[in-house]
């Protein structure tokens, strides 16, 4: 894309998926001999491999982008191949956006055709707007029209992305119905339309935990195949995800590598899982759940924050005291109720546990 600022791409804080993993995409495209749907950069099999990881015949290692059930990725990729739109549902931090970005990067080679859904997203963000200077000077014309990412994706046969679909007001959401069912976007001002060409599809993400969201109308919902992204099934899988992402982010933020962090990561994940599930890992003791979601994404940010503390102010080793404050902040969202929950958990579970003494002390220190 020739958007302004592209020249700084190399220094971007967070490069796009198609740039960060360009070598993997290239290797996959070279090795991929299966049939590709029109305008797809890769075959569905190669897209699934790109997300789930693997080793190609030429020895190129594809890193896993999504750690989770294989069937979820397969259903998602297959949906895109059947010209039905894809709706990724899940609680915060289940990698919805991450999956959607990588899907778009692998399918169309471009993950930037993005509409960010907010309560203030206008219809123009999904259809088109006008360059008013031109409109006034020359009257309505295609030149005066500012296409939305969705419109550009339709015209070029690319994958468009809509983030947080349920935050968009209901009437604006419904603009998508024509796009998804008729595959066309009328421009009544010009008596024209933009018809989607083969290869166009749309990935939307939505949060199914949030209250006060705008439920999808059944007409719109019918146009989507829905895939629910689950929380990691096991503690080991979650530790793996956190460790992997922390490592990537640590490198992006130039944090010094911290070698012995795995123990603390496991501890953070254990605390998060136990509080989230309302039961200790051994399944023996019930604990109360706080109001926050305690998603994997929050665990990642707690550990990253702890790493930064350890690197800049500590002795370079991730210690319980570095993550304690972060955990407290993530758990105690409601100052009254959650604090009780957290203290109960500290006293009933953490204090009794072997090898958690330092952690218990560190938590007591920040909680008091």
């Amino acid at each position: 894309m020739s958007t302004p600022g592209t020249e700084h791409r190399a220094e971007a804080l967070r490069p796009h998926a198609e740039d960060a993993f360009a070598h993997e995409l290239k290797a996959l495209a070279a090795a991929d001999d299966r049939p590709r749907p029109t305008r797809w950069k890769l075959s569905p099999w190669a897209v699934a491999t790109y997300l789930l990881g693997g080793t190609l015949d030429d020895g190129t290692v594809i890193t896993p982008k999504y750690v989770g059930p294989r069937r979820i990725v397969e259903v998602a990729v297959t949906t895109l191949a059947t010209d039905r739109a894809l709706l990724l549902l899940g609680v915060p931090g289940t990698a919805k956006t991450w999956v959607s970005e990588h899907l778009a990067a692998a399918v169309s080679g471009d993950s930037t055709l993005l509409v960010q859904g907010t309560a203030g997203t206008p219809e123009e963000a999904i259809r088109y707007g006008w360059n008013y200077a031109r409109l006034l000077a020359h009257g309505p014309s295609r030149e005066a029209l500012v296409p939305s990412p969705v419109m550009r994706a339709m015209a070029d046969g690319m994958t468009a992305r809509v983030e947080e679909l349920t935050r968009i007001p209901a009437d604006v959401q419904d603009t998508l119905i024509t796009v998804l069912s008729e595959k066309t976007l009328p421009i009544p001002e010009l008596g024209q339309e933009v018809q989607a060409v083969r290869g166009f599809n749309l990935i939307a993400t939505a949060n199914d935990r949030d209250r006060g969201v705008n439920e999808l109308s059944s007409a719109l919902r019918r146009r989507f195949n829905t895939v629910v992204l689950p929380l990691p099934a096991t503690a080991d899988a979650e530790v793996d995800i956190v460790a992997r992402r922390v490592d990537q982010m640590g490198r992006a933020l130039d944090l010094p590598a911290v070698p012995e962090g795995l123990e603390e990561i496991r501890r953070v994940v254990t605390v998060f899982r136990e509080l989230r599930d309302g039961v200790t890992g051994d399944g023996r003791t019930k604990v109360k759940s706080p109001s926050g979601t305690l998603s994997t994404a929050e665990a990642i940010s707690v550990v990253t924050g702890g790493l930064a503390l350890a690197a800049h102010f500590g002795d370079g080793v991730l210690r319980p005291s570095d993550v304690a404050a972060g955990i407290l902040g993530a758990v105690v969202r409601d100052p009254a109720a959650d604090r009780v929950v957290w203290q109960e958990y500290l006293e009933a579970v953490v204090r009794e546990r072997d090898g958690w003494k330092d952690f218990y002390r560190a938590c007591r220190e920040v909680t008091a």
Partner: protein
Amino acid sequence: MNPRSPQTGGPLLLGVRHHGPGSARAVRAALDEARPTAVLIEGPPEGDALLPLAADPQMRPPVALLAHAADDPGRAAFWPLAGFSPEWAAIRWAQARDVPVRFIDLPAAHSLAVKDDQEEQADSVRIDPLAVLAESAGYDDPERWWEDVVEHRDAVREDPLAAFEALGEAMGALREAYGCGGNPRDLVREAYMRQRMRAARREFGDTYAVVCGAWHVPALRAPATAAADKALLTGLPKIKVETTWVPWTHRRLARAGGYGAGITSPGWYAHLFTARDRPVERWLTKVAGLLREEDRQVSSAHVIEAVRLAQTLAAVRGRPVPGLTETLEAVRAVMCDGSDMPLALIQDRLVVGDVLGEVPDAAPVVPLQRDLTRRQRSLRLKAEAQDRELELDLRKDTDAAKSLLLHRLQLLGIDWGTPTASRGSTGTFRETWRLRWEPELSVRVAEAGIWGTTVLGAATARAEALAADAAELGEVTALAERCLLAGLAEALPAVLRALADRAALDTDVARLAKALPALARSLRYGDVRGTDAQALATVAAGLAERICVALPPACAAGLDADGAAELRGHVDAVHGAIALLADADEGLRERWAAVLRTLAGRDTVPGLIRGRAARLLLDDGRLPPEETARLMGLALSPAATPADAAGWIEGFAGGSAGGGTLLVHDERLLGLIDTWLVSVPAGAFVDVLPLLRRTFGAYEPGVKRALGELVRRPPAARQRGAGPGRAPEGFGPELNPVRADAVADVVRMLLAGAAGAAAA
């Protein structure tokens, strides 16, 4: 190599996957092609006599061939057959053409003679040969592999025998690698099968067909001598065996352990076998129909999209046509909004299915009936058509055994006896039953035959199934109670697990509170009957803890009058139950008292419940009189609404016995009520009047009169009489030693008598 083995001129060997619809189709096609003069099937030869029943129009699979030891119905084996089982297809094919059918497996007389535990162990290490082949081909589901590589190959359709040839070769390789697959008994069985095949050759020549597990094909083709086989078969233990057909269900086919066939998706297999064409489209239409019945909006467009997604998904995965996994994933993404909940319904109703088989009336008596008859004889309980009352004293062994039998039969839906209220004694060791044997109960016994071969085994299996199916917590607690009554120790763990699960998920404290008394009662029965109820006590204590946590918020959450009345009933019931439980756990009693204290002292709790909590605490001696008076004063102070205050009075002094007596004896409390009543404004008085009437109207006449007397006196006189240390009206200021001594003997006798009764 042709399966007919032209070089040896041998018989047609059709190796199948048991309960595989693909195998069933292939067997049918192969039989049509080869037209054998006789069909031999892997199964106990004792079943030969029952084979004609398979052609009976009343016979509807799934059914099972049941063989059991004549003198011990508990020792039994089942050979389940579904409509899509290849063995069933072969039987029906032969019967439709008047071709003789024989079972050729090792007789049940031998296999049942072997100890059960050995049998089970052998089964656990046994390998599924098709699963091994499927796994080496990269498949996780053996049936899928079979479908993909056998059924969907055009060559197979043109030459039905080729599939069996290929499979036979593969099995030959497997047998070379694995030998007997960790199951030495297979060698004996195969020797017997070969013997039977030799007999068949003498009778029919080489034009017969054998339908057996694919695993056995290489062994049956092996050139073993008759003498060697005979040597293997001599000296096998033998017992007398009886056989019959019993109806079976898809659910039991799906059960992995016990007598289940371990087929996880019988409904799907049946669909594959019966669908004329377009199995995926028809299946998804069925799913849509089910979802519509459950009021989900599913249109034809949904079905179309699901079919497309399933097909594309199969293509992405490199499979020739969509299978169960692909269709279910398509259903989840397209019809269920990605949710697992409706999928569980589909799994239960369609993938497994509710199909129940039928067996003709001519089938021999089921062993359950035999077991029942035996027990009736040993307990001297005759099955009589007229009503008979039966008094049981559970401390006697025979009576306890009778009670167990009747309770077990009740669990099985065989209502021979119905429990009635005991006359005279209310002790837990007494039971009264009304017995009446209706003719249709025999039918019920036959139906219950699918649960097991003995009354105990069947009742256990049924209780476990009921626990798994129960939707509400109350059902499971009732079931736990019945399990204890029926002495089903083996079913109890499953029931208690279901109970704990339901309780953990249930957020409605009313339901939890309803469940607890039954549990506490069960514990008491457990004591009387000597059953080990430790596990039950743990579950009950857990339930009580949950109630302690959840009750205060539930009571504070804006209840209306009806809700408050309902909860007050629960508070009473839980209080009684906790008194029973607390013997085991003193801490529980303390926690419950703390809950009551919270309830009594919290303003947002309705007056009715606050009053009740205060009263319960007072009765337990946990609330000093001063504190009681303070609470009542608060509840009846002018700031409280009259309706709420009247509710408090009803909760405190109404309902259970003794409320009036309390007021008679504690004049301070009566005074508080009196003062409050006088201060109620005229307008509100009409509103609270029904409440007060309900409270005071229930008192006994004597109490009412005494209260009336007290209230009639002027306040000053009352003031004098109230308070500790001062004698109430009509009593002297000091103890009168002479009169006290006179009653002392009577009191001592009463107390000693009570102690004596308790000791007895």
